[in-house]
């Protein structure tokens, strides 16, 4: 409940600031330079979805076929000036299934932020986001059975500068506090904790240097350091660092390619260290008939909110094609391998296919039909699952 109170109060304050600023902005008549310098905008939207799901609880027993109806109202607010950005994204995500045994739930997506350009090249950002987060990374990140409400408050300081040789350097530090509502979780093989809370501090530093190498080719070096400290499980505290060298190119017409590779080290303060290759390959190819091909491969260290750290290898491939002006279809396949390094509790896989077709009905309304098949498999078969989901969505956004 503390989370809700804190978040709601902070958002109300942010919202009132937005509205008062908006009033000032809107009160200015005409189209003079003063009016042009600041801007208030708001975009309300609502989506309604009907879902047919053959495994609403993501269980291996596969016994929960159900029909669900989801309603997602949302409003995006922004007040923007030459040296600052102030915004709020306020929405709810209400999910109801016909069968009461399915995980009907509601989530809130309430976030606010302010970004200040304090000096040339120096930006500060403060943000608060009360949003659902995925618990199991080897599962669908948008499924009610895999989501828990969290609140993340963060502060960023970013520095950017040009450097000799046409290069650019970016340095960023971030500190954040994450708290979650209590949820049921397996704790390190010691059974189930029905009142688990993922409350933690985390910090990170990222530095990147990039420079043109040749015509249509640029190179970059990126390094990062992260740490995470849990309130109630200091045994899970860890640090993570990595460095990659890569290139970006669009040598071939309409083809974008980025390849990077390097070294990553993950170390628990009270335990093991793991190190290995980290890298990324992403390719995007545009065809003038309105087709976009995407291919990506990532090898990296990732973390879930329970405290697990994984060496993740993910590959995705997708094709999107625009049929005329109003319609687009896309098909994709994905596969993730998550090697749990925290408890050496084995390897989990999540793979599947998805497809969707979108059509613009009117200027502000759109319809989408989406299908996904996802399958989880791993060293522990008891939590394996598969899921077929078909979703019909109508959305309005102004």
């Amino acid at each position, binding site marked *: 409940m503390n989370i809700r109170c804190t978040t709601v109060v902070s958002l109300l304050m942010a919202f009132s600031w937005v509205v008062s600023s908006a009033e000032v902005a809107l009160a200015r008549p005409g189209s003079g330079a003063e009016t042009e310098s600041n801007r208030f905008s708001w975009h309300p939207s609502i989506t309604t979805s009907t879902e047919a799901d053959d495994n609403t609880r993501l269980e291996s027993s596969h016994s929960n076929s159900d029909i669900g109806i989801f309603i997602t109202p949302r409003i995006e607010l922004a007040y923007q000036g030459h040296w600052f950005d102030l915004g709020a994204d306020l929405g709810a995500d209400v999910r109801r299934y016909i069968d009461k045994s399915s995980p009907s739930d509601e989530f809130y997506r309430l976030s606010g932020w302010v970004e200040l350009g304090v000096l040339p090249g120096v930006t500060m950002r403060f943000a608060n986001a009360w949003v659902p987060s995925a618990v199991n990374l080897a599962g669908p990140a948008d499924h009610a059975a895999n989501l828990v409400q969290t609140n993340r408050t963060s502060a960023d300081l970013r520095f950017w500068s040009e450097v000799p040789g046409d290069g650019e350097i970016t340095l960023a530090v971030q500190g954040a506090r994450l708290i979650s509502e209590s949820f049921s979780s397996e704790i390190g093989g010691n059974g189930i904790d029905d009142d688990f809370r993922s409350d933690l501090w985390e910090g990170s530093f990222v530095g990147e240097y990039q420079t043109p190498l040749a015509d249509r080719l*640029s190179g970059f070096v990126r390094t990062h350091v992260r740490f995470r400290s849990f309130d109630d499980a200091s045994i899970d505290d860890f640090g993570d660092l990595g460095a990659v060298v890569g290139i970006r190119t669009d040598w071939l017409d309409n083809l974008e390619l980025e390849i990077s590779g390097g070294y990553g080290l993950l170390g628990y303060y009270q335990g093991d260290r793991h190190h290995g290759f980290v890298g990324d390959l992403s390719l995007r190819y545009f065809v003038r008939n309105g087709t976009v091909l995407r291919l990506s491969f990532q090898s990296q260290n990732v973390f879930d909110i329970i405290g697990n750290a994984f060496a993740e290898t993910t590959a995705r491939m997708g094709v999107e094609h625009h049929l005329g002006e109003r319609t*687009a279809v896309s098909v994709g396949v994905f596969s993730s391998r998550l090697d749990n390094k925290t408890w050496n509790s084995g390897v989990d896989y999540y793979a599947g296919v998805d497809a969707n077709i979108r059509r613009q009905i009117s200027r502000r309304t759109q319809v989408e039909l989406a299908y996904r098949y996802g399958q989880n498999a791993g060293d522990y078969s008891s939590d394996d699952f598969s899921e077929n989901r078909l979703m019909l969505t109508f959305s309005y956004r102004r």
Partner: protein
Amino acid sequence: MTAGAQATQATNWTARRAIVCLAVGIALVGASAAADTLEPRYRKLGPDAVRSERIVTQGDWAAHLVDVLGLTPALTDDSSIEDVFGLLCPKDSGHRSDVAGGSTAGTSAYHAVIDVPKPKSPSDLLRMTVSLPSPAVYMLSVEGSGPQRWVVDQQVVGHLDPSELGVAQAREVVPLRRGPHEITAFLAHDSSAERVELTAYTPLCIEPAEGWRADRPLLHGDRARTMVRALGIEQRLPESGEPIVIEAESYANASAWGVRTHRKLTTRASEHTWVTAEGSPAEFTYRLHLEDPSLFTVEAVVHGISPQIWSIDGRHRVTVTPDEAAEGFAPADVITLPLTAGEHVIRALIPPDSGIDLIRLVRRKSDAADYLDLIEEAGFRGKAPAAYVTRSAAYKSLSNPTFLAHAYRYLEQVAGRPPMPLVEHDVGAVYSRPPSPLLPPEL
């Protein structure tokens, strides 16, 4: 292994890694110095823009826009940035072009008129060349009669039949470079062509509020304005004030076959009166005086099934195709364009049995913030109108798949189809998550 040996090995590893990092750093800096000479002044944004915080110039933005809109065939190696701007928004400066294979009736920087030579026999192919002084997106129009097929530089621009109006505009526009071009026509038996015009298509002018300045930083307001015009959705800007309504029967001038009529159709005419062409095409001229400059959408309530040709101030000429399904009167979008304060002339050339009931000029809000609202509605994030656009933001905008899908159809869109682009409602991918759920994607 002893502790000393381990320490030595660790030191060696550390030293090797440091050397590798140093070598990579030196290679990158060295290569970047060499790359200085490779970068032309204005060009399509490259891979270095993906994460660049540098401010993008209007010159670079225009060069990239021309590329994604498919207009680069009109550019050559010696093209200047002014040529790029001219492709996006042709501004006639009164230069003249040379015409061969026909006599020049009148030409300027973005306009060439050719008196078509008489074919030696009816089955002859008509072939002529024209030298254009400026690269631009050109539209061909022809005066004559009967069905005919026109080709510019091996590219078919239209199967035209100017019989009804005496003149017809090609449905396809084509980007043409400076210099000579071959125009070919295949005329059916009994068809004729007297005059051909190649005119830069001015109705869709893509430029920032104060025009293009190559070295000026691009502002978010200008980014939005140029994207909206590239998408062809300017008529979606909010209305401002009462529209100016001109009853068609209150024309200033009408050609010989133009008459007022009270004839009743399935839908009632405004004021029970409208104008039509009896027997032959007729041209109606309307004059209006504007107190203030503004962006206007010109709409007309028209009758008929055949295309009509409308022009504003003699320069912006478009073909209006009435709704064939409507038996009475139906509204039709003519053009959206900025009009200055002062006198303006609207002309409508309509075929027999067609008509006009009224003309509406809808004033539209056109501040930078209005354009930003419009592209945000289409799923693009905006910032303050006067904020500078970084190269990464510019690159992200122009490589957005939705924008590209419509940009690639730019030349078709120019030909007059009302756009209904698919936009991003931010519904999100079916399966997606950032690299780490607790690490913002931008980090």
